[in-house]
């Protein structure tokens, strides 16, 4: 078997262009973590169920373990490392998760933060049912979700108060 053909491309992550050289089958999650070194995106199942690897592609949440890096060419990728502002100030969702104890071990947390950031960008004041439905594609084994649901409502309140920008 000959060596795999490598594709040279540029991935734009959190506004920064990253040139990478990857085989066609390289998962976006692996490219982010191991080629670019942005290890805030986590891999919990590699079969698209747990949601730990959720990133935003042009603002929409996608599972980076179900996507090839080469397919992300030309798109704007946002990861957890891109949520805080340029001075390190946390976005509303990050603040809310801390205030409401919406995380314990924290492994699922970046996936939730990305999902909720996109959810609130689309629906700034979700109902209880909309929150529960909105996070139903992410699994957490530590919290029982109650404080995550509270975190989403808190983030919505922070954004309404103008205390946090619904970045991106």
């Amino acid at each position: 078997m000959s060596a795999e053909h490598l594709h040279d491309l540029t991935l734009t992550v959190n506004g920064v262009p990253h040139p990478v050289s990857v085989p066609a089958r390289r998962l976006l999650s692996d490219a982010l973590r191991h080629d670019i070194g942005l290890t805030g995106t986590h891999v919990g199942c590699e079969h698209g169920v747990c949601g730990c690897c959720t990133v935003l592609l042009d603002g929409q949440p996608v599972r980076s373990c179900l996507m090839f890096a080469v397919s992300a060419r030309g798109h704007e990728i946002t990861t957890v490392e891109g949520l805080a502002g340029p001075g390190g100030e946390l976005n509303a969702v990050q603040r809310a998760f801390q205030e409401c104890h919406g995380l314990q071990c924290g492994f699922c947390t970046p996936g939730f933060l990305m999902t909720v950031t996109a959810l609130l960008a689309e629906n700034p004041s979700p109902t209880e049912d909309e929150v529960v439905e909105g996070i139903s594609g992410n699994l957490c084994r530590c919290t029982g979700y109650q404080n995550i649901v509270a975190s989403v409502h808190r983030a919505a309140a922070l954004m309404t108060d103008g205390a946090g920008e619904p970045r991106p």
Partner: protein
Amino acid sequence: MSKIDPEAVAEQAAETGQLSEGDEGTDRNVGAPRPRKEDAKLITGQTNWTDNIQLPGMLHMAIVRSPMAHARITRVDVSAAKQQPGVVAAYSGADLADEYTGLPCAWPVTADMVSPTHLPIATDKVRYVGDAVAVVVARDRYAAADALESVDVEYEPLPAVVDMEQALRDEVLVHDDAGTNRCFTWPFSGGDVEQAFAEADVVVKRRFLQQRLIPTAIEPRAVVVAPIAAADEYTLYSATQIPHILRLLVAGVTGIPEHKLRVVAPDVGGGFGSKLNVYAEEAIALVVARRLGRPLKWTESRSEGYQATIHGRDQIQDLELAATGDGRLLGFKVDLKADMGAYLQLVTPGVPILGAFMFPAIYKMDAYSFSCTGVFTTKTPTDAYRGAGRPEATFAIERMMDELAAELGMDPIELRRRNWITHEEFPYETVAGLTYDSGNYEAATDKAESAFGYAELRAEQKQRRESGDPVQLGIGISTYTEMCGLAPSRVLGSLSYGAGGWETASIRMLPSGKVEVVTGTSPHGQGHVTSWSQIAADVLGVPFDDVDVRHGDTAVAHSGLDSYGSRSLVVGGIAVHKAAERVIEKAKRIAAHMLEADEGDVEFADGRFSVRGSPDVSKTIQDVALAVFAAHDMPDGVEPNLDSECTFDPENFSFPHGTHLCAVEVDTETGHVGIRSYVAVDDVGRVVNPMIVEGQVHGGLAQGIAQALFEEAVYDPDGNLVTGSLVDYYVPGAPDLPEFTTDRTETPATSNPLGVKGVGEAGTIASTPAVVNAVVDALRHLGVDDVRMPCSPERVWRAIHRGGGGNGDGRAASAAQVTTSQSVVGGRQ
């Protein structure tokens, strides 16, 4: 405190922000909902998981696993794999057999226990789907995975044995040399059981099944080994709960001297017992790195982990409860079969034994007998999963209490009231020989009943039954206690456990007055950095933010016994408290010297040493720390440091308790169960951080409810794991779980100076029987007296339409005498 209210959070955030700036008061941190120090890096993606680690020249390991549950290995040929692109090495089990011994089981529960050799890579037979048979090492993970297919393994298939009762017939032997699949039988009793049963007016007899569960820590396991070949030194990074125990034991397995092996548990993403082990991959990675002299990494895929990381529960429980006609308990007989799986992992046989002491629970009874038989099957090994033995015990007694209440026509809370230990009776020695130090079951139950609206819900239930509503209401009760805080070393010794139960903490006062706490506990989500900071800050009188906590690295914390069994606070936290007290004790001598006062006249409060009667003459703890660093004027014979250490060995277990009430709505037409309300009142003694405690309760409830309603590891008759991925194994998501109403009573533990009790497992232990009791209660008037877990719509529907347990015959008689309504174990569906 039932639900986090965003407005209250805003106030609290403002308030705690102020507190953390200038809080120097004693006892002002313990009890406060301090925001977690851990969170900043977790919410910004700056964590250091094992799989993040990249080392120069690092190789990647992948493991060839058996696709068969039971087979003789006739040939393993790795030569083709070695020719694959990027492959550096490949080894069969035989190739590495001289590099290590078998993996350890630290809990030989009986002298005659069968403890089979458990090589990290199988050489003669494979014994479960997922058993390792070869290893491939390549330059990247993709290449290693590709090459697995090029390893040629020939098997001679043997019959699988997945059912414990079938295994006990010894027709198929998992371990040929043992001559039996019976691993051990462990008997235990207190009081005269036969006498108790002879005197009984009522005996309730049931068989309950504890289904097999998969812990599913959300971070997969991962291992990185960094060798320094020239010095024969190794660093093992592992997603483990037990870096210290792992260091000692894997050193023994690989022959690496303990002092040449450093074990690091970097950030670890959940454990629940699944990372409380010495795993094959840790040993394989070490010996392969030793051979190759190169760093290497292995990270499990989720499906791989579902086969190769331990499972939990899996018991058959045969139970008989004897009582008088007016509902006084007389005796309890417990006969267990516990599935070990194919091999013994670290504490596999000890798990049901931990439960042995908890079947009598909070109740007074004259006699108790217990027997457990451990059984080998061709399935993934079981081991500790959140609660480890106590959820099984609590389920058994709490389900039996509801069955007895039904038998007697008595309210299930009233039955419990008639039998529980009253608060005046503590300390209380149970029929199982434990001494419960404190508790107040009346207070917790009163609070729970009130929050739940028990009387109103009973009235609604009556109305729905009378009207024949297709959606029936059920109420489930669980008045639990559990033993945790593992553990007094002497007790562990008497149970033949291979280690003690102490914990070590060190305090290092830095010259600037900042504080480093080093703990032997190894957190993986529990927030020890925050809670230990609260404890140390209060004793030392320093601001919360001036304390940092170091953990999870044997080069930093040289001594420790790690985190499991809800032990970290009640053993490790107390060690922090005592070590901090030792700092103050020494600092007081030095302060007295600085103040030119007699030590007996020096008082310490709010971070300040002062002379009694002259509060203006004082030195702060920071003044003393700096003076010690300079060491220009120390008292004679006093060493110039303000460091201290404490190794705390508890005198007793910790016995949290509480009352959980669950209301379910069961659709009798579809079998769907919906939790309408859930009230948990827990008594975990004095609380260090109520926010963290509540989070632990929530997460525990989620896992206990998941056992009741959703999760089951299913094997087919050939030993294939049918639920081999997160697609098939139902870990609940947000829509599956109810909103919990939580509250507390606070009865301080008397067995430690802070009055604290463990909380990590309580929610899981309490909730499973509360939910199943509710499901059965909803359907009892339809002739249902059990529903096998998980209470899926299908099982519930079948139970309604057949009566009984949803998996067998319905109850034949309702007379108050011996009833034998057992759910028959057929093939596992």
